[in-house]
């Protein structure tokens, strides 16, 4: 039976990715129904497992529990395999004929150093689709540069566009924005390659540079540079021809609401929502051009109105008038936000050791799809037996030998149990 929520069912992915950009791509593939086998070495595991040590990470086998891991690796399977060893590579060679896709976001040179070149991968599976997601790509003078999301954001032009405007300082996005963007694009690349393979029978090699994907989200700035040799100005939360268009303070500590008025009709609506104050009728606010020219004063007046009220009350008044607006939701608020809740965006994730918490479900939803989350992130090596025994038919003795030789494992090498560790500060 075709499940419209899982169009990639039947596709198997060997997932060699780590940290964020790659795992985000593989998460999308898994959510969309692909069988994603997350492959980690007993000596070089996905660093995200141990980035947040106890006591923040919960449970005795804490490398399986942190919230960061579960965000990106739900719905996946875990196979441990040391690809740096000849024995591990032999197992990988046996696995590849069962796979459609290999995806990695290592440093540019790592796959070749491991002997896992495109040519070698094709020898194992002729129509394999290989995606490499190095930050700067696999070719060119800067191919050996490395970077996580904020570096990608800086090097793509993105950061140069962001700032308050009064101090000249460029600002990064609050998240490591370059990572998920590259991940989404890599998921599109995989689907595109599968579509092409269906017609041609051929796989392909995809060299996806994270910096280039981020840059493609900035087309108009490239156009302005080539048309007018002009670089962007920092707009803060303002706009170059609309007002009111800003973030206004609300009652409480660090509470804000974003409000934008785009038309005279919305201006009338805003005035009604504010209880029709007298100042709203002043001639200098009577049309869009005048309002923009007097935006500093207008922002002050609107902010005076919002500052004594709860942001949810201001939002309710603006919502009734259909004014573009939104509270600046904090993290503890967005996970309970009524609209997202009504749509079922967050789903419960059940973990045997940690319990239940909510994580985001479908990025987009297909009519007729059930819940997105079928399983939490796999424990380290949880599916070793299923993949090696079930899929590859390796005997218990062979698997025991791999474990004894350290080719597979269920505990990352050198990582102690939580009870054996002193509490350690966490960067998150």
């Amino acid at each position, binding site marked *: 039976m075709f499940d419209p929520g899982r169009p990639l069912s039947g596709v198997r992915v060997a997932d060699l990715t780590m940290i964020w950009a790659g795992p985000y791509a593989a998460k999308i593939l898994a959510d969309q129904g692909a069988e994603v086998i997350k492959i980690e070495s007993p000596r070089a595991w996905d660093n995200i497992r141990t980035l947040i040590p106890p006591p923040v990470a919960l449970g005795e086998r804490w490398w399986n529990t942190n919230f960061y891991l579960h965000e990106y690796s739900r719905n996946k399977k875990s196979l441990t395999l040391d690809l740096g060893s000849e024995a591990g590579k032999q197992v990988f060679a046996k696995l590849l004929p069962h796979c459609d896709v290999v995806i990695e976001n290592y440093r540019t040179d790592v796959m070749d150093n491991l002997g896992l070149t495109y040519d070698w991968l094709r020898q194992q599976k002729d129509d394999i689709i290989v995606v490499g997601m190095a930050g700067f790509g696999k070719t060119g003078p800067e191919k050996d540069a490395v970077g996580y999301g904020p570096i990608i954001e800086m090097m793509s032009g993105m950061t140069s*566009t962001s700032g308050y405007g009064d101090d000249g300082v460029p600002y990064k996005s609050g998240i490591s924005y370059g990572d998920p963007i590259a991940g989404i694009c890599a998921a599109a690349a995989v689907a595109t390659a599968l579509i092409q393979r269906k017609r041609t029978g051929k796989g392909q090699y995809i060299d996806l540079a994270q910096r280039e994907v981020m840059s493609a989200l900035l087309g108009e700035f*490239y156009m302005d540079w080539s048309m007018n040799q002009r670089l962007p100005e920092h707009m803060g939360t303002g706009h170059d021809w609309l007002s009111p268009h800003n973030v206004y303070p609300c009652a409480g500590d660090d509470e804000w609401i974003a409000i934008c008025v785009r038309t005279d009709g919305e201006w009338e609506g805003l005035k009604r929502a504010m209880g029709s104050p007298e100042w709203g009728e002043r001639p200098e606010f009577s049309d869009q051009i005048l309002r923009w020219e007097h935006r500093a004063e207008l922002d002050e007046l609107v902010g005076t109105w919002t500052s004594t009220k709860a942001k949810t009350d201001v939002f309710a008044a603006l919502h009734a008038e259909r004014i573009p607006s939104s509270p*600046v939701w904090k993290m503890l608020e967005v996970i309970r936000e009524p609209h997202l809740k009504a749509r079922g965006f967050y789903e419960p994730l059940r973990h045997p050791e940690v319990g239940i918490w909510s994580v985001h479900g479908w990025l987009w939803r297909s009519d007729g799809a059930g819940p997105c989350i079928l399983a939490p992130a796999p424990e380290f090596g949880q599916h070793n037996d299923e993949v090696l025994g079930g899929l590859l038919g390796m005997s218990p003795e062979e698997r025991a030998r791999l474990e004894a030789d350290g080719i597979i494992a269920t505990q990352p090498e050198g990582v102690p149990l939580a009870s054996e560790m002193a509490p350690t500060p966490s960067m998150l």
Partner: protein
Amino acid sequence: MSEHTNGEHGSDDPGPYAGVRVLELAEGISGPFAGRWLAALGADVVKVERTTGDPSRAFGPWPDDLPDDETSGLFLYLNGDKRSVTLNLETSDGREILRELAESAEIVIESFEPGYLAERGLGYEELSKDNPAMVMISITPFGQTGPNANLPATELTLYAASGQMWLTGHPARTPLKNGGSQPSYQAGLNAFAAVSSAYYGAVIHEQGSYIDLSMQETYAAMAEAFHNRASQLGIETQRGGNFLNALWGIYEISDGYGGICALPRNYPGFATAVGLPELQDERFSDPGNRLINNDELMAILYGWFSGQTRQGLMEKGIEHRVPFGFVATFEDLANSEHMQERNFFAQRDDERAGQLTYPGRLWLSNEHEWKMGAAPTLGEHNVEIIHGELGYEREDLVRLRELDAI
């Protein structure tokens, strides 16, 4: 690496989406962004515009700041290699032509307000009646359902609604929006991933699907570890401006701004690249101590970075494999030897807008190229499509024009 990644692909395949008809009923950035890459990869993208044109034609930048519907940089970027047909969906003739176009469409991308198409008999059910393998996606600010479904939105309000704004900006100042139109662009990229995977499913199973994409949700899904930190541990996150900690942030350097993003495993390389002996001290070399002594480390690094240059940071980063970078401008990027060697840019002498350089692809493949052609003028393909392909007579076109249907 072997020849598959050197940018000289030499593939003569007509493209992954060759033979695929896409109907783009979308305006602005999100839908057209998704359609643009389908067109670049071989799809026949028919862009249905209102008779006054996609409003993005009225957004700049324009050459020499002269507004012109046919030279908007935003429109030209987002609509290359498509065909444009104008249709007034408020007329029965316009709706009928749309239904006929949909009969041969594998993918439909729409961005009307929720309910608009269904109220006019143009919802997924109607359009796919004789075309069960059709994939259709609706891209809207808040999705098709829920209390905010019909609330209008802007880039700013979506950035706030997704939780992203709370995380962005200096802790002592107002929350900040990142630049450009990221809520729209990221939704467009998600839409591209959504339709490509749904279309693959449709090819395999001969069954299409209808997809509801909310721009708020796709951006909220990128709240990184921060929403999970809230939901698993009940901990709120404060925005940190340009720093998560001393080794994850943006510093002023001698010719601009430079950055470092180092995880614990990057520290040894980082300390070597910086070369200051105190970085080997146990107060900093141990990951836990480093966080305890973060302010002290940051003070040292403020000093060190102030003497660095953009070029110098790149060289050190490459030599020591350390995640250094700098805040690049579009001038830097357009002139980047690296980006040019990788053929990242479309470089085109546009008939109306002159010499243009802009992102021309998303990735490199050894099996396909990316088209980097011109965007259509408004209604450029009305005759070709309505007369030539749908079989309307030329006198019908006159009538349709007089009735304001095209």
